[in-house]
């Protein structure tokens, strides 16, 4: 399609940054995520009631006094959902940051030193990947003992290998590129080339992965809490609130609203991550230019 390719080459090239902004989903994602972050920061001001106070009529449906109703113990569900953002968001961000750091370091080391080091590190990622995430996370969480902290730790254990693989691949390909080779020839130290030349190329993909991983981490964390391996009652955590809802599901509001909260947060990060991936990886991009006869 020579002439067609030609026609398309003629189109003006857009720069990457505006491309991100031209993605409506990215904007929706940013707005929702930002809203939740604001809610988390100002939760005590926004929540009308104490999330732990069992002071109201139990199991009352949504009303003007209790937007999301009250739960079986007479707590205000709206306040609990608001306060739940202070549990899920900071923990998810921290654990993803931790997993990304550990994974990136392991991947960089494996990609940089290659050989036996690479072999050992990559086989260990294979081992983690051999387990479906929730099974491994469940076992680790159970072994460490129930609790939010241990559940988060368990998710770090499952999450780091994907960063290791991505970073290793990038370091391998960047390390083979001519400019890094020449930097090495010029006598730049290993550490310096790694920091100067390799890291900047790795940052983008790791960031995309981390955004999408935030979504997964929140899902997994709330899943573990749902199973009773994460947050323990009476803590207002979304997953365990849904679990309470399953016991009293004739009172649908107890479980539905915390679930909606999880859904919107995860959706925001997925919108964002998916759009970012389009921007960073032109191969999977959905640009209009994909017209072929």
């Amino acid at each position, binding site marked *: 399609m020579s002439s067609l390719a030609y026609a398309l080459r003629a189109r003006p090239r857009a720069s990457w940054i505006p491309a991100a902004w031209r993605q409506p*989903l990215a904007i929706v994602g940013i707005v929702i995520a930002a809203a939740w972050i604001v809610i988390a920061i100002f939760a005590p001001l926004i929540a009308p009631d104490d999330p732990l106070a069992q002071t109201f009529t139990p199991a009352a449906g949504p009303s003007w006094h209790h937007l999301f109703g009250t739960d079986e113990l007479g707590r205000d569900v709206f306040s609990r959902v608001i306060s739940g953002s202070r549990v899920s968001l900071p923990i998810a961000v921290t654990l993803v940051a931790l997993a990304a750091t550990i994974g990136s370091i392991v991947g960089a080391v494996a990609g940089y030193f290659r050989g036996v080091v690479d072999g050992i590190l990559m086989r260990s990622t*294979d081992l983690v990947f051999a387990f*479906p995430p929730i099974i491994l996370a469940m*076992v680790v969480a159970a072994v460490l003992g129930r609790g939010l902290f241990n559940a988060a730790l368990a998710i770090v254990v499952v999450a780091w290998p994907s960063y290791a693989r991505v970073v290793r691949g990038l370091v391998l390909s960047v390390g083979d590129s001519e400019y890094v080779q020449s930097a090495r020839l010029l006598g730049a130290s290993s550490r310096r080339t790694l920091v100067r030349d390799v890291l900047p190329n790795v940052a983008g993909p790791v960031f995309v992965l981390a955004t999408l991983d935030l979504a997964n981490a929140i899902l997994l964390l709330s899943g573990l809490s749902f199973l009773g*391996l994460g947050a323990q009652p009476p803590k207002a955590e979304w997953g365990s609130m849904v679990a309470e809802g399953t016991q009293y*599901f004739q009172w649908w509001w107890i479980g539905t609203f915390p679930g909606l909260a*999880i*859904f919107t947060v995860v959706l925001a990060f997925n919108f964002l991550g998916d759009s970012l991936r389009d921007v960073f990886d032109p191969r999977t991009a*959905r640009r209009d230019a994909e017209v072929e006869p």
Partner: protein
Amino acid sequence: MRFVLRRLVALVFLSIGITAVAFVLTQLVPSNAAATNLGEQAAGDPAAVKAFDQHYGLNHPLPVRYLIYLDHLVHGDLGQSSVTHDAVTHDLGQFIPATAELALYSILFAAIVGIVFGTIAALRRNRPADHALRVLSLAGISMPTFWIALVALYVGFYELGWFPGAGRLNPGVNPPPSVTGLYTIDALIAGEFGLFWQALHSLILPALVLAAFNVSLLTRFTRSAVLEVIGNDYVRAARAKGLPERIVVVRYILRAALPSVVTVLGLVFANVLTGAVLVEKIFSWPGIGQYAYEAAVNLDVPAIAGVSIFVAVVYVTINFIVDVLYGVIDPRIRIT
């Protein structure tokens, strides 16, 4: 075929690694294994405790204990569950079919819907249908499975009463004579159509809930796989031959896109298992997910180790099969 052999060797090593990880993890549990396994009475009997410790090599250092565990494993002994007081292998045999049946229907549904959606999205790329499916599929992977299960149960069972709320069959109904362990298939074999419908009826809600995530995943994968092949000359050549669009899409586009779609089957399976752990609890489905959950919550060490080894080995085996299948579907790889 050297490729298959090499992957097979890697699979064996990986499986050994899996047993090691599961073993070491479970050994970290602080517990008096004999007491929890034998129960109060027997634990008071020093001879019984000694025999137990002897059998599982509990008086040996860790590496030796691992080797003993492996030896038992090879002989089909995964120890005894401290919750059910049955052999773990026996328990697995009890619980696997329920999950297998659920997974089968769920994956089948997800594959059909996901491939159709993904193809539509790709054929209508950058049109409203494509954008709608993108948002829909992102929503699908963003909804917590346990929450969908709750909502589905509330609406489908509590409000509308269209579906049973729990279990594989109505309470008090005897399952069909076991051949495969899958009630729908066993019922058909036994010729009991009423039982078949009942089993299917109980399956629908949990299977659909489990499928939600995979429908989205497969939609997204199929879309990009179809887009990879849609601009190829052979697709244009097929149209130039005057073939009807239906044949161009199915025989030319989907046929070429299928291998890349097949590669996510491992992921699809992992998602079903993840979902099963959460969904089985809500639907009181007596499957492996429930068993894993009970084992983890009760720190039932042999059961945790057994179930995680089983699940992981199945998982890596599926990924191995997918790799081989990829070669079977694509004749270019078959030769080399």
